[in-house]
């Protein structure tokens, strides 16, 4: 019997299609109060006064928390979490008060009418490539090196037959999971209990314990169902802190949810990025020089540097290379993780520049990538555990019909449509983090698996069941999986496409240990339990470059009358180790590609520099792809047997789908029109007056 690697319907699917699945505040206790955040209407300054008395006179209002009366917090190393601790306003939209009331209606109206006065100071919210505040951080996100160099890139460029130099920009992008961030919190005998919409209950519990001066076991966080996250729920934001503060202040459970508008300012976002890319190649298109200088923003409260130049370091061979990251502090909220931080904007820049180089060198874009396949990781010199990038391209080319493509831009016309095709590579590191797991054999022949995975829609709950059934060699019906509870052995965050590899490793290890014990021991009445941790297993791994790869090809059509871009078909082929559940894997890859299409054509946070806020902060004005924007999508993956990844032989698949997707679209738009748009999103105004007649 084999369970892993085969389709398995989501174990929580029935609950989700019937509305039974409950998310965060939907699990509030009956006596819970409702909280509503009040946000700063100035971008920088301090709170002078809050008219809490008038608010408290409103029937149903129980409390108004401000920096003057909120319980004090300890330092947890993230000043975004120091909510209501002082009178400073670090960005427009920061929480300056919290109204707690008996009903949502009362909380909402009172918050909307709360009189808050400010003292304002001059602000600076605009990122530019020559911003005077740009500096080199100690390191970039995920521990990426700030700078790196190989050889003399200026010499490499000078000796190149073909040089491409361009600046590529991505706007502020907002994760916007469909379930806004939400928490219900209550206190029991000095211990904190919360149901939170989070990608990791272990890190949330750890952070809450630090903030409130508790021992970790005094905090229990659960997250049975989470309505998406895409990185924004990877680290706790202000919502769990505020809910816990309020519950402490009023002595009752408190439910708090961000509004959709608050998701554009209190939930993290992808920083705008500016990439100055220079590529140099010999006459045949072989890279002599890669230079990627990346610029991004962070807040006054916390440093976050998007590792935009990290993608190219491990991706293509080149005799010389230079990569740098510079960041500047602005009067904005702190950028954070959004689906493939670093790799996503980095691949947009690099895969676009390669397309420009292919045209300059007169080489087919797929062939250009083939000519620049490295034998080892160019950055580290480490061998690849497996790398099927070109196999992905070749299979994508078959499925798409790439062969015989006319390379000339702007020459294919179908009625009022200009038609083009584009390609880009995808890559994402295959990571794993230490996790624990507990597996118990019951005398009735069933098994209980406790692993602190979080299922934000990935299918993790289902895949953990499959892993356990496979390793225990029993029918899945005999396995019960318990996830998303900080009382379980510690689990890694659902991020970095590392979830299944990390949690699954622990589950596999625990199941194997349990099976070997069951070979010699009888299962007692209270069950036979094994608890494991994978920290040591991970330390013992060989120094290898572990990455998943992919190739994406799309057809773009541009309406010559309006400049509208549509993408009627796209193909994605991936090599991501062993695919554990094809059904949920396909949805993961489809979701990444769809979000990449959305990034290419629609999404753009528009900054109002005068008032320091996001002008478009709802789903009517910040456009995300809708159903009619997505055409036919073909997804395949290649068989891959990589023994260097851990017991599951799996690479992550949650993020790779978005990596390169926007570049494939931009390249197809160029092929259709001859217009190279280097600043996303590709909207009609950037094309219309430049289209061929």
């Amino acid at each position, binding site marked *: 019997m084999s369970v892993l690697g085969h389709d398995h319907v989501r174990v929580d699917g029935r609950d*989700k*299609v019937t509305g039974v699945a409950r998310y965060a505040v*939907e699990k509030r206790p009956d006596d819970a109060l409702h909280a509503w955040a009040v946000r700063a209407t100035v971008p920088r300054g301090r709170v002078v006064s809050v008219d809490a008395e008038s608010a408290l006179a409103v029937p149903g209002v129980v409390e108004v928390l401000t920096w003057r009366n909120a319980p004090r917090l300890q330092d947890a190393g993230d000043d975004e979490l120091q909510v209501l601790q002082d009178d400073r306003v670090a960005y427009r939209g920061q929480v300056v008060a919290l109204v707690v009331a008996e009903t*949502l209606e009362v909380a909402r109206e009172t918050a909307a009418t709360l009189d808050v006065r400010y003292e304002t100071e001059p602000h600076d919210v605009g990122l530019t490539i020559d911003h005077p505040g740009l500096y080199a951080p100690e390191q970039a996100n995920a521990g990426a090196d700030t700078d790196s160099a190989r050889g003399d890139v200026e010499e490499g460029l000078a000796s190149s037959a073909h040089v491409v130099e361009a600046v590529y920009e991505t706007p502020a992008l907002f994760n916007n999971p*469909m379930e806004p961030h939400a928490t219900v919190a209550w206190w029991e005998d000095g211990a904190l209990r919360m149901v939170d919409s989070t990608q990791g209950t272990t890190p949330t519990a750890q952070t809450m314990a630090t903030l409130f001066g508790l021992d970790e076991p005094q905090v229990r966080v659960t997250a049975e169902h989470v*309505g*998406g996250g895409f990185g924004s729920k990877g680290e706790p934001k202000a919502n769990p802190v505020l809910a816990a503060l309020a519950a402490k202040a009023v002595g009752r459970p408190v439910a708090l949810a961000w509004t959709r508008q608050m998701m554009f300012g209190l939930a993290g976002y992808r920083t705008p990025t500016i990439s100055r890319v220079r590529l140099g190649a010999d006459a045949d298109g072989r890279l002599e020089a890669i230079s990627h200088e990346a610029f991004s923003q962070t807040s006054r409260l916390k440093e976050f540097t998007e590792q935009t130049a990290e993608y190219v370091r491990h991706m293509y061979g080149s005799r010389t290379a230079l990569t740098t990251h510079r960041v500047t502090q602005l009067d904005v909220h702190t950028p954070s993780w959004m689906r493939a931080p670093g790799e996503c904007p980095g691949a947009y820049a690099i895969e676009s520049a390669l397309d420009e180089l292919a045209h300059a060198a007169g080489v087919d874009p797929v062939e250009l990538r083939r000519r620049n396949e490295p034998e080892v990781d160019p950055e580290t010199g480490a061998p690849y555990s497996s790398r099927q990038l070109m196999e992905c391209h070749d299979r994508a080319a078959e499925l798409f019909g790439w062969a015989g493509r006319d390379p000339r831009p702007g020459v294919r016309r179908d009625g009022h449509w200009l038609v083009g095709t584009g390609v880009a590579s995808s890559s994402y590191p295959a990571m794993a983090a230490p996790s624990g797991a507990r597996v118990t054999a019951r005398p009735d022949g069933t098994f209980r698996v406790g692993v602190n995975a979080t299922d934000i829609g990935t299918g993790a709950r289902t895949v953990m069941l499959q892993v356990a059934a496979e390793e225990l060699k029993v029918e899945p019906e005999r396995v019960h999986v318990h996830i998303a509870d900080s009382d379980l052995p510690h689990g890694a965050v659902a991020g970095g496409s590392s979830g299944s590899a990390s949690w699954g490793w622990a589950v596999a290890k625990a199941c194997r240990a349990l099976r070997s014990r069951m070979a010699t021991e009888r299962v007692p009445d209270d069950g036979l339990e094994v608890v494991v941790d994978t920290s040591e297993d991970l330390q013992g791994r060989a120094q290898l470059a572990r990455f998943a790869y992919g190739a994406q090809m799309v057809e773009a059509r541009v309406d010559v009358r309006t400049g509208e871009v549509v993408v009627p078909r796209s193909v994605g082929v991936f090599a991501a180790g062993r695919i554990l559940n094809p059904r949920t894997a396909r949805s993961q890859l489809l979701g990444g590609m769809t979000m990449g299409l959305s990034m290419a054509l629609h999404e753009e946070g528009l900054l109002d520099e005068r008032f320091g806020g996001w002008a478009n902060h*709802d789903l009517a004005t910040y456009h995300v792809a809708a159903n009619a924007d997505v055409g036919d999508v073909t997804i395949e993956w290649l068989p891959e047997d990589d023994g260097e990844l851990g017991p599951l032989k799996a690479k992550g698949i949650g993020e790779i789908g978005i990596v390169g997707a926007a570049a494939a679209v931009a390249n197809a738009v160029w092929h259709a029109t001859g217009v190279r748009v280097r600043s996303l999103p590709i909207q009609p105004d950037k094309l219309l007056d430049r289209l061929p007649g």
Partner: protein
Amino acid sequence: MRAPDLARSVARVTQPPASTFDVTVNGTPHALTVDNRTSLLDLLRERLRLTGTKKGCDHGQCGACTVLVDGRRTNACLTLAVTLDGREVTTVEGLADGDDLHPVQQAFLDHDAFQCGYCTPGQICSAVGALDELAQGWPSHVTEDLTGEVEPSAEEVRERMSGNLCRCGAYAHIVTAVQEAAR
């Protein structure tokens, strides 16, 4: 907890304007008195504790709160509860027949037409409404022949389901599921 002072105790006597009305939800009649500000969405979620209907934007922009009012798909967040006197509301909790899923629910499950599941109740209610509109021959923006029968083509389904956002990006699977349910 803050001790209530006299002024607040007096203020609490004054209740916000409320109205009394009758509404049927998933076949169950309710006689309700609610704060006039209450949306149908908050009535369902907070008062009746039918949390299957989701709050994604509260502004009619995402479709996560879609329910059926007298069989027609409606954004519950844009509907004041007190306007529903005498109406029948069907939510995602009211679609299945006992253990037998509604064909749209079954198709969503079969085609993995969701990931996180948060937009799913709205998608499913919207699909039920859309299929009824198709069956009645209602044209959409992409319908070529405005007088004949309308086929549930992929293009028609995409168009008609575009009021329901899915950030997990399951659209391609949603189209397949809705088409299957149409058969």
